[in-house]
């Protein structure tokens, strides 16, 4: 499981407290380059907090975060792109009044080199940059099948298409680590299958960390799964291993696996 190359993302002994609440308790996990790792766990298990730590939105109480083998002590959100980390949000987070293409171009801008001054003065270099960004963004939108909506405003598109645009915006930066926060929410089964294909296609190209509630998707696309419960890692392993892990069944999957018509009707009666 361990490789010679440093992990794309490594978290060790991570603890986050909000006042008296322990959101994450001594969590350790890593994502190797090119690997797809799923983070699952019941609501309130600390999945989103974990994401927020990796994004620099939440400062851990203690613990260590390494990106490409380098420790990040004072990670701040604007450094993410430079470190090669991209994230999609649980909501879409698309900018409402600018076109889909421009949304994606904002994501691509770490590849732009022109500074303030040259852009202000409209020097040729910034012009070329702008064109390169545009082409790059369009190429990626084409790959994700959303090139035809490039000129439209995000709000005018159906939700699944917006999700693809949001994914394109994350991918266009060519990240080494992609964080997907519930990418399947609001998608139909068929669309989820397409999303699964897409994520599988990313395997080998970048490290992917995925938080998701839909077990089918997680089981289908992940190389490894980390299970959180009450802020603790209770299991790590391949989908097959996790599926049969006693603690996981008890904490989380157990409800679904054991769910019978009887228990559901009981629940409804209550």
């Amino acid at each position: 499981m361990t490789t010679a190359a440093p992990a794309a993302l490594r978290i060790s002994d991570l603890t986050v407290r909000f006042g008296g609440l322990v959101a994450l308790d001594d969590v350790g996990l890593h994502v190797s380059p090119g690997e797809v790792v799923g983070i699952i766990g019941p609501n309130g298990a600390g999945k989103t907090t974990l994401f927020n730590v990796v994004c620099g939105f939440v400062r851990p109480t203690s613990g260590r975060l390494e990106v490409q083998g380098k420790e990040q002590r004072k990670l701040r959100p604007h450094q993410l792109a430079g470190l090669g980390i991209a994230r999609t949000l649980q909501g879409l987070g698309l900018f409402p009044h600018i076109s889909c293409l421009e949304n994606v171009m904002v994501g691509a801008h770490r590849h732009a080199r022109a500074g303030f001054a040259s852009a202000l003065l409209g020097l040729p270099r910034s012009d070329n940059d702008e064109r390169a960004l545009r082409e790059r963004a369009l190429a990626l939108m084409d790959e994700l099948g959303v090139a035809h909506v490039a000129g439209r405003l995000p709000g005018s598109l159906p939700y699944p298409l917006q999700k693809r645009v949001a994914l394109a915006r994350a991918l266009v930066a060519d990240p080494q680590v992609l964080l997907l926060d519930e990418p399947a929410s609001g998608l139909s089964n068929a669309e989820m299958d397409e999303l699964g294909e897409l994520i599988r296609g990313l395997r080998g190209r970048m490290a992917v960390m995925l938080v998701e509630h839909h077990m089918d998707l997680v089981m289908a696309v992940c190389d490894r799964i980390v299970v959180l419960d009450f802020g603790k890692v209770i299991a790590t392993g391949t989908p097959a291993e996790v599926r049969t892990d006693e603690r996981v069944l008890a904490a989380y999957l157990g409800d679904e696996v054991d769910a019978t018509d009887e228990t559901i009707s009981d629940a409804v009666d209550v």
Partner: protein
Amino acid sequence: MDRFLSVTISGLSGGMIYAAVALSLVLIWRATRVVNFAQGAMAMFTTYLAFTVLEHGGSYWVAFPIALLTGLVLGAFVERVLVRPVENGPPLNAVVVTLGVFIFLQGLAGLLFGGRFRSFPAPFSNKNYNLGNVSTVSPFEIFIVLSVALVAALLFALFQYTDVGLRMRAAAFSGEVARMLGVRVGRMLTLGWALAAVAGSLAGILVAPSVFLHPNNMDGVFVFGFTAAVIGGLDSPVGAIVGGLGLGVLLSYVASYAGGDLQTLSALAVLVFILMVKPNGLFSTTATRRV
């Protein structure tokens, strides 16, 4: 009819100045959701700086860019140093800060430059060209229209067609998300204020020949500019320009046909009317939130 035409034309050139003030207010509103009540005073102050250059024998064409450049610096300074610390507080805090800047700059101008009315030169003649017996437009009015149009066009191009402009728009729409994508949001907001203040300073130096230079000289102009921005919806640069021109023409009619004293009153009437009938302005894209 001839009179009507020349009144309309002078209204348009006056309206261009209100449009510049409105544009600066809109740019700041878009970036940081703050109405910059200090905008008029900032423009007054940079016009005084240009005046100082003129007093020391500098040419108008040195003083003019100096007014714009000091506007740029002043705008960046006010945002970065004074507004930034209160940006995450309640919106009223930032408004109070801009009011403080407004009072401070007026006081400082009085202290440094005195409270006398000074005449400020125009770079071109104020005499109207005559077309037959119709008095049309003066070279200075043409200069006003062209320079505001040029600055507005440059700002538009910057926002719409450059990478920096795109980042500025992204930062304005959603700072958090933009930050995650690697945009230096703080810098973008500072730049937004700086560019907005340039438009304000332009209005200041263009209006000075007609209202004279005085620590309070921009107060009325600011009210007109604010009204123009509200007409346009505070969110729309195009709306600011159209609002400014429309208001300029309207006020020009009021001044010629009803009396100059009624100008401010009628601007306020328009302001109240717009806020009652179409509070989002004529050009706003934001949906109304009804509670």
